[in-house]
């Protein structure tokens, strides 16, 4: 009896610190955010209960709709790109290279190491047009493609694409490593057996390796969904949400509403929409997985 009691205490020592920290900085604030969505004004000053008005406001808010679509663009281009290129690069590392595999892996991971803000500062210089041409425009100039020269991050037609591409560049290595770890776990006998049966390399990968890789793929997709829906640092530092509002993703819109206009209630509502969006999308992916397994 005494031993069991002692064990119970031990278990608390293991789990309790995390639970306390978690409740304080995630669970409680999350509930409070939700509570705030029913109010407008500044807390303790003129905080007024407005019921569902903040949610109703979303539907008529053109800026919200625009931010939502911008986030979706980022989600599909960058989030999708991480998965597709991460997988292709990992496959090349595992099956395409006999030498240099370790070196290649390190090189591909390099962009992940650079701080997001530093990458933004770096690329704003690469993509610049004034006061002098940045690297990209200089290159276009040399190649005689003058018509393409532009302020890549200042032109509303290209700014969001630049944000997407720079973050795509920065993130591929992260997903490559996870996919690669998954590929190492594929038992070599499986490939061996397929090869003996006369399957070519591509067929083996397509028919044998990829299905075995599914749990890892699901994990990557879930991570990509979470990371792409909450994006803020690249569009904040590279373009500051502009020009106009073309790179104002949901996070930045929420940040500006809450911390420059000080509308906590409406800001919280946008945050809750992001939360619901993330949960719905990740749950859809996880359900898909379960259904196919039945």
């Amino acid at each position, binding site marked *: 009896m005494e031993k069991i009691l002692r*064990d119970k205490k*031990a*278990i608390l020592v*293991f*789990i309790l*610190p*995390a639970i306390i*920290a*978690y409740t304080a*900085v*995630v*669970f409680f*604030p*999350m509930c*409070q*955010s939700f509570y705030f969505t029913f109010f407008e004004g500044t807390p303790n000053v003129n905080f007024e209960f407005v019921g569902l008005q903040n949610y109703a406001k979303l539907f008529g808010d053109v800026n919200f709709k625009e931010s939502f679509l911008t986030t979706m663009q980022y989600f599909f281009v960058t989030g999708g790109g991480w998965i597709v290129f991460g997988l292709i*690069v990992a496959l090349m590392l595992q099956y395409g290279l006999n030498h240099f595999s370790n070196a*290649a892996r*390190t*090189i*591909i*991971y*390099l962009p992940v*190491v*650079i*701080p*997001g*803000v*530093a990458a933004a*500062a*770096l*690329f704003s*210089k690469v993509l610049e047009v004034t*006061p*002098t*041409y*940045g690297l990209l425009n200089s290159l276009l100039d040399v190649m005689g493609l003058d018509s393409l020269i532009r302020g890549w991050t200042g032109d509303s037609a290209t700014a969001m694409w630049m944000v997407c591409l720079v973050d795509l*560049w920065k993130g591929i290595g992260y997903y490559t490593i996870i996919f*690669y*770890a*998954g590929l190492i*776990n594929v038992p070599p006998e499986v490939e061996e057996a397929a090869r003996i049966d006369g399957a070519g390399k591509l067929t083996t990968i397509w028919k044998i390796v990829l299905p075995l890789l599914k*749990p890892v793929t699901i*994990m990557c997709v879930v991570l990509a969904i*979470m990371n792409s*829906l*909450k994006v*803020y*640092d690249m569009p*904040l530092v590279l373009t500051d949400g502009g020009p106009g509002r073309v790179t104002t993703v*949901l996070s930045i819109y929420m*940040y500006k509403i*809450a*911390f420059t206009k000080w509308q906590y209630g409406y800001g919280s509502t946008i*945050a809750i929409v*992001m*939360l619901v969006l*993330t*949960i719905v999308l*990740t749950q859809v992916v996880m359900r898909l997985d379960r259904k196919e397994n039945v």
Partner: protein
Amino acid sequence: MGKKRLARAFKYLWLTVVSFISVFPFFWMIIGSTNRSIDVTRGKLTPGNYFMENLNTLLASDQGFLRSLLNSAVIAVLTTILALLISSLAGYGFEIFRSKARDRLFSVLLLSMMVPFSALMIPLYRFFGSLGKTPLKIIGLNTLPSVIIPTLSTAFLIFFFRQNTKSFPKDILEAARMDGLGELAIFFQIYFPTMKATYAAAAIITFMNSWNNYLWPLIALQTPDKRTVPLVISALGTSYTPDYGLIMTAIVIATLPTALVFFVMQKHFVAGMLGSVK
């Protein structure tokens, strides 16, 4: 045979392109840090000898770069140590002492992994702000602890440690218990040294996230003497007459710690990641 050679040529061409895309920005930023602003603007791609001058200007500038390095280092190191300790204890606890109730608790934790930080920011800002008038103001807004505390418990790390604990041999555990070792002693004396790869991978991820964190420090830290490196870099980039040699130097220095952590521990990194996808 010709086809095979073509395939191989294609492979290495592809590899070269990928490597170039990955490495070139690094190459350029290092080159840039050795040149004057005007040369960086002109797209000069050969190293100059202005690195020391850039460094001196950077350190002498009123942006407080050195101070921000110190702030970032304190935050990143403390966050990494504390977050790894809390999360590995929990990940281990959830896997070793399983029960229905604890499994349910874990799935709630896991679900909250989806919560974007934006959904927590306003209440956290208000909470830390409200500490300013109490004795707890040492951890209130505009202090380093206010940046550290919200990142201490991440569901991802707990999940990561739990996944890796699955491969921890349970018979060692039984043997240690027979020897009369307490649960905490087992954790620190046996589990911790065995799981070095897992800790290394978790340390890389946590240190990088903390070092690169931008949005929360931007909101929580208000006076120049408290700023972290990303805040200073973003301030340098948006100044009225940006000095590009100086910016490049700052970027190089900002990248050094994370690059160093990665290179020192990268051998363990893949091994650690491996444990989490099993």
